[in-house]
């Protein structure tokens, strides 16, 4: 493999992302091209700009440390028409509520979701698991060892978020008084999401 010029690097990254189809961790691209992360990030940015500025048929999206190509939403109707597929169903209000609670309080338990909503959420949690918008991430170390849930990369993609940091700010959260569960299941103050992402 020879040295690549800037445009070739862009094309090589495009080729890797296209071949993968799935989200690709930036580290993989760095290793494959033997380049450092800031450079690769720069090229990825250029590639994303090219797609959206030139209104191409694809878009480059970032989900935390992963990148993925997807079709441009501008042409969704044509794609659906070509393959005779329907638009996926909208998330119901309960599903949105459960997803929002998990997104903001993750990792969290179904019991906590139930508490906040005041109703049983088991069906909706199952639905969100099926749609890969949430996933299990261990169990809480309290009696009964309830499962913990968090949002997925697919969640970031579906809501067009680069990372959880980009979630809309929760009103009234300037105070630190948010209720959270600690390892014993007690309610404790919120841990900033940025710290959690670093785990």
């Amino acid at each position: 493999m020879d040295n690549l010029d800037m445009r070739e690097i862009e094309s090589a990254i495009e080729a890797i992302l296209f071949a993968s189809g799935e989200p690709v961790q930036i580290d993989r691209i760095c290793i494959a091209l033997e380049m450092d992360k800031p450079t690769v990030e720069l090229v990825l940015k250029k590639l994303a700009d090219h797609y959206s500025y030139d209104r191409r048929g694809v878009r480059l999206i970032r989900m935390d440390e992963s990148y993925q190509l997807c079709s441009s939403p501008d042409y969704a109707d044509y794609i659906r028409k070509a393959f005779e597929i329907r638009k996926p169903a909208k998330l119901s209000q309960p599903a949105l509520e459960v997803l929002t609670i998990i997104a903001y309080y993750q990792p969290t338990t179904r019991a906590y979701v139930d508490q906040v909503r005041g109703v049983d959420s088991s069906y909706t949690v199952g639905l969100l698991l099926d749609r890969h918008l949430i996933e299990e991430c261990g169990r809480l170390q309290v009696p009964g060892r309830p499962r913990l849930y968090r949002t997925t990369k697919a969640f970031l993609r579906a809501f067009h978020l680069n990372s959880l940091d980009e979630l809309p700010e929760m009103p009234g959260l300037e105070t630190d008084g948010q209720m959270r569960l600690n390892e014993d299941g007690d309610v404790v103050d919120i841990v900033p999401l940025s710290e959690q992402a670093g785990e």
Partner: protein
Amino acid sequence: MDNPIFKLEKVVQEKGNEALQDFEGPLDLILFLLSKNKIEIQDIPIAMILDQYLAYLEQRQQMDLEVASEFVTMAAHLMYIKTRMLLSIEDEEAQSEMDALIKSLEERKRGEIYLRIKGLTERMGPMSEFGRNILTKNPEPMERGKIYEYDQEPADLVLAMQEVFDRQGQIQPPQLDVFDEIVKREPYSVERKARELFQRLKQGGITRFLLLFRGSRSRSELVATFMAVLELCRTRAIRLAGSATDCTVSCSGELPEELKFE
């Protein structure tokens, strides 16, 4: 204890540079004080919260007593709990009053969170439109996962070495003489010995095989000499003749450009 819900804008309206705060009920005020002090609901320090609660009420310029009565009732209640607790740590009645207060606070807080979540879903809903309008593609067929990448800390090296030393019951690395047989100083490398032998035969002509070993100062030099003879024979640079007991060595060719000892 009920959760009074009164709009107390007038009562608790702040003046000056502090942001306007209004509390719908005394519990909201307590929650606010708790969060301001970064205190968990379970750990509510009644004395401190009571002081701040009263201070907060005093700050208000215009107290409309009629609307503020719930706040004043709460102040009295906090004072009651504080007094009971001061009198005796094991006061069950005060404890259950505390539990009731904590429970109300938690319910209040959950209700607040739910309201916030409901507000947020109004923003999240439209955001999810993006996901309904994009498609991803399947991967192209390719082989995966044949090259291993590792992610270690430099300190892992120190720990690993420590483990080795500990197992040997010594902190110091092994003594040099342990490795004499492997890495001992080797004055005659095989290659150097071969060149030396060839030079000697070229000048002196024929000689006895055993004489080649005379003057060797170490076992390794003997071995080097023997291996050099074998290698020079193989490359036909020297020739062995005679019998097992009376063997002669003579120069029969040129020294190869490169002696290989692989």
